[in-house]
């Protein structure tokens, strides 16, 4: 009796979920590998270099070579480090970066879990990645690592508020926290019915906060290789370092995918007429995500690193007031005939 309920309630749903998780995470990790390759190539061409071109055809096997190198490198634990936390920190950074994908919808009804409070879930889980950085910085028992961790903590708190307000705007317009229904609320004849237009300030604030939360240039003060060597992961080598790396790039893909879902109409084609509607929605979603990832790399190749106090000023004194004002604008618009512009 107990065994039978166990089988019905536990094993089959568990197996099914496991299958869905594998179907999402394996392409994701491959995407991470080739995002590092794309990054080196794109920045190479922007800086009039060739980028990696030795391993495989035009360097296409470079990420594989990097992965093998990282796997066989020795994991060094500094003698005065807190051993347990030092080894746990990369896991703490990696796990949330994978967990957030549970709620991301890839098409109508195509998500690992189509949960009701999806928007809250991704916001809550995405904020957990910083524990990996803070714990790594503290457990390394190194001043540079610690400085990096402190910077990351202050930066996260500043930008998470602006990010939260930007998402509040989205949920006001869509009237739901369910990510699938947020995309469906943007259905219309084309790209002018997506949320980036009525919620333009939120779109900018969310994407820039996303760049800041993933610790990417120009907000990469937590690493800041010219001032604090490599910040929080200065003591890590081999797979420990690789996990931080994987988490950072998976988070970049996640921020791009979520920006697509929230502001760029998810799986809807830019214009709803014949040749565009033939292409499956998943392809549109991936194309938009890939474009935003390119913007990530473009930003990195273009801008110098922000000074720390400038980052704080941008977060607290620019983004938070801007989002607060636009929340009021949207709130007023929803109560007047203007609501047809927003919804």
């Amino acid at each position: 009796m107990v065994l039978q309920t166990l089988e019905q309630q536990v094993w089959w749903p568990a197996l099914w979920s496991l299958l869905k998780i594998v179907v999402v995470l394996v392409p994701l990790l491959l995407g991470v590998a080739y995002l590092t390759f794309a990054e080196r190539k794109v920045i190479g061409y922007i800086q009039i270099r060739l980028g990696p071109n030795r391993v495989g055809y035009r360097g296409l096997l470079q990420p594989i070579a990097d992965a093998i190198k990282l796997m066989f490198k020795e994991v060094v634990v500094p003698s005065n480090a807190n051993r347990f936390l030092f080894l746990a920190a990369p896991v703490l950074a990696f796990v949330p970066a994978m967990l957030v994908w549970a709620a991301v919808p890839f098409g109508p009804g195509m998500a690992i879990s189509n949960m009701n409070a999806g928007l809250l879930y991704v916001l809550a889980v995405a904020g957990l990645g910083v524990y990996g950085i803070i714990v790594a910085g503290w457990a390394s028992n190194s001043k540079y690592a610690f400085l990096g961790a402190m910077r990351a903590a202050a930066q996260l708190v500043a930008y998470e508020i602006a990010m939260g307000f930007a998402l509040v705007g989205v949920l006001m317009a869509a009237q739901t926290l369910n990510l699938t229904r947020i995309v469906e609320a943007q259905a219309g004849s084309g790209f002018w019915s997506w949320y980036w237009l009525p919620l333009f300030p939120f779109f900018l604030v969310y994407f820039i906060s996303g760049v800041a939360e993933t610790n990417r240039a120009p907000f990469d003060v937590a690493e800041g290789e010219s001032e604090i060597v490599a910040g929080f992961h200065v003591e890590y080598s081999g797979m420990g370092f690789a996990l931080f790396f994987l988490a950072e790039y998976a988070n970049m893909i996640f921020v791009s995918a979520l920006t697509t879902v929230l502001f760029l109409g998810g799986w809807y084609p830019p214009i709803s007429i014949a040749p565009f509607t033939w292409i499956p929605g998943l392809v549109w979603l991936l194309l938009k995500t890939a474009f935003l990832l390119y913007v990530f790399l473009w930003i990195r190749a273009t801008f110098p690193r922000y000074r720390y106090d400038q980052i704080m000023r941008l977060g607290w004194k620019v983004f938070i007031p801007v989002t607060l004002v636009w929340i009021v604008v949207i709130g007023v618009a929803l109560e007047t005939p203007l609501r047809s512009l927003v919804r």
Partner: protein
Amino acid sequence: MPLMTTVLFYVFSAILLGSSVLVITARNPVYSALYLVLAFFSAAALFLLVGAEFLGLILVLVYVGAVMVLFLFVVMMLDINLAQLREGFLRYLPLGLAVALLGVLELSAVFWTAPLGRLGIPASSLPKGTSNTRALGTLLYTHYLYPFEIAGVILLVAIIAAIALTLRRRPETRSQAIGEQVAVRAGDRLRLVDLREPQK
């Protein structure tokens, strides 16, 4: 309650209680803070188990995602003397026990008067089509509007008080005037001089 939920309830409750005890007994304050994170997490899982997804996720978002990050920030920065910290343990033990006892009494009073059946209703038994986020929002902004706004004002007072306590004018420090920096044009900083020899 299905079997699985019951099992998970006891697992999470055990983790919650265990980590709470470790918060006050851990030797290292950083470990204490991390155990507190674990305790919040388990509590959030318990909320999720009864279908109160809004409360569970907000607990993770606010306490784990923001409050505990700042806590860790401070705990790691301070050079805390462990021996000094432990000194007061026995002295404050009676007070702590009294507070705990009071809490237990209050809770049991609530459970005693309210029929258990009413408290045990899972949040998931809301009418179909209403999420509990919406239900909570509607309640907060209609029935409980005044208490909600008063709580907001109290928090605002606390924010202003904290700023007032730490704000000092220090004319001797050099700070940057951001407005002036942003308003600078290339012509203010750079003068192009023609160095060619005058044509004869």
